[in-house]
């Protein structure tokens, strides 16, 4: 497979324009529709949108922290062979910083710098996925199992896309016109975030599944991230498409379970490193060679985003 640079640039341009279009407040359109919506929407508390946005900032931050630590370790392992390997460290750090800032910020308006940082993070993730695809395609054997297992992982930069995207969506939710339900591109924000969460979870499951299959599921707990999060993804995906004013206790349960699973995964991976030859005393090899300690909390970040989405849908039902 060959990736044409022009196609990459074109894709980047389209995404950039879409992002730019989304940052514009749909004020006029929203006002025109406000009388119709106001009839059906319950009391609109402007703080509700900011609250939801901050929850999403936290979700984006957790994913960014996971990506930052994971890419730092893995790219150090790769000896920063290509100078571009520093990029995710920079953008993930910025995304984390923007998330911390967003979490502390109670303003009901998008922040330009945060917007730029989140967009840059998402684009870096996209470019990184392209790089990793290209890297695998150049290896002898191309897209063989061997290369998918042991070359640059495809799912890792995708996590940076999710962090940037979640943060970017958080800014859109925060940018809600007072008295209006939060929307993203004309759609209910809660539904959009729920859908992104569902797809993100499925992608992360794919990555965990691939690498746990490589690890031959030698520990029964390795089945957890390929069984629980798919249920969660189905549940939150169903919520994205289904009726909005429902409690969805079961979906919340799966999301909380998945959030917990992300942290538990880190614990399991710490034990996994200890079980490698030489254990933690041989950390300089085993932290690189063993299971990636910072990877699992990506699940936690996505689950937090899913919970924020449910909150949004409950606060602003659209049916």
């Amino acid at each position, binding site marked *: 497979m060959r990736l044409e640079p022009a196609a990459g640039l074109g894709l980047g341009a389209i995404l950039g324009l879409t992002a730019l279009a989304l940052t514009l407040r749909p004020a006029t359109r929203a006002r025109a529709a406000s009388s119709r919506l106001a009839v059906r929407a319950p009391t609109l508390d402007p703080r509700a949108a900011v609250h939801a946005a901050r929850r999403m900032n936290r979700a984006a931050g957790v994913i960014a922290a996971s990506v930052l630590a994971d890419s730092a370790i893995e790219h150090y392992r*790769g*000896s920063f062979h290509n100078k571009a390997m520093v990029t995710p460290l920079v953008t993930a750090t910025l995304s984390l910083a923007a998330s911390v800032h967003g979490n502390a910020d109670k303003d009901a308006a998008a922040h330009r710098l945060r917007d730029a940082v989140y967009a840059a993070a998402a684009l870096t993730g996209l470019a990184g996925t392209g790089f990793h695809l290209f890297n695998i395609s150049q290896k002898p054997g191309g897209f063989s199992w061997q290369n998918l297992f042991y070359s640059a992982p495809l799912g890792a930069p995708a996590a940076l896309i999710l962090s940037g995207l979640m943060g970017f969506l958080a800014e859109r939710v925060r940018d809600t016109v007072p008295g209006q339900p939060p929307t993203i591109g004309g759609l209910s924000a809660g539904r959009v975030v729920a859908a992104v969460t569902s797809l993100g979870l499925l992608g992360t499951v794919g990555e965990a599944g691939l690498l746990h299959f490589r690890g031959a599921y030698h520990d029964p707990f390795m089945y957890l991230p390929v069984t629980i999060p798919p249920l969660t993804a189905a549940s939150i995906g169903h919520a994205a498409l289904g009726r909005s004013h429902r409690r969805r206790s079961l979906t919340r349960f799966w999301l909380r379970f998945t959030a917990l699973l992300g942290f538990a995964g880190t614990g399991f991976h710490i034990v996994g490193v200890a079980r490698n030859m*030489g254990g933690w005393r*041989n950390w*300089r*090899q085993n932290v690189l060679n063993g299971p990636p300690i910072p990877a699992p909390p990506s699940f936690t970040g996505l689950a937090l985003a899913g919970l924020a989405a449910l909150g949004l849908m409950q606060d602003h039902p659209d049916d």
Partner: protein
Amino acid sequence: MTDRYPAYDVLAKRWTESWNEVTRKVIDRRLAAPREPRFFSASEWRTLGALCDRILPQPKDRPPVPLPAYVDQKITDGRLDGYRYAGIPPQGVAWRRGLAALEAASQEAHGGSFHALSAEQQDGLLHRMQHGDLTGEAWGGMPCNLFFQHRVIPDITHAYYAHPTAWNEIGFGGPASPRGYVRMGLDRRDPWEAAEATSRKEAARARRNDSDVV
């Protein structure tokens, strides 16, 4: 031999996380191999010593790897290869017979013991052995080229590269137990691996080997 890994000493890894107790025991045993023959007779020992000097000549400015001692130890310990050519008897028998036949060939060709010959004369006999041109009753039906190819070369070279002195030459870190390798790609190096000297970076690499590579 050019020093590709200046200032690198694999034994400096001894008390680091690279080696564990098992590795230390294995290395200690190799370094403590008796320098006197336990399997070979005195005359076989002299022939073997001269043979080793021609197969793997060693520099005079460092203690040599005790090649004859390692060959003797392998036979004494009964460490087998796991396979054997049908034309060659078991390793101890093959070695005894091969050394005696080499000595006989030396007497016949030059009227003297193999170990007392000049290097050129020794090499001449070894070339004939390699090409299957040494015959006689002393070989007992064992093809001399098979003996050369499957006993002499492997046993002596394996002995050489089992010793830390050889590892220093090639920048090898010893048994990967417990610490092995992470960066497997071509021309990639883990920080605990020896750094190969290039003419340009020689000095810097030498300093790094001295301090970091443990």
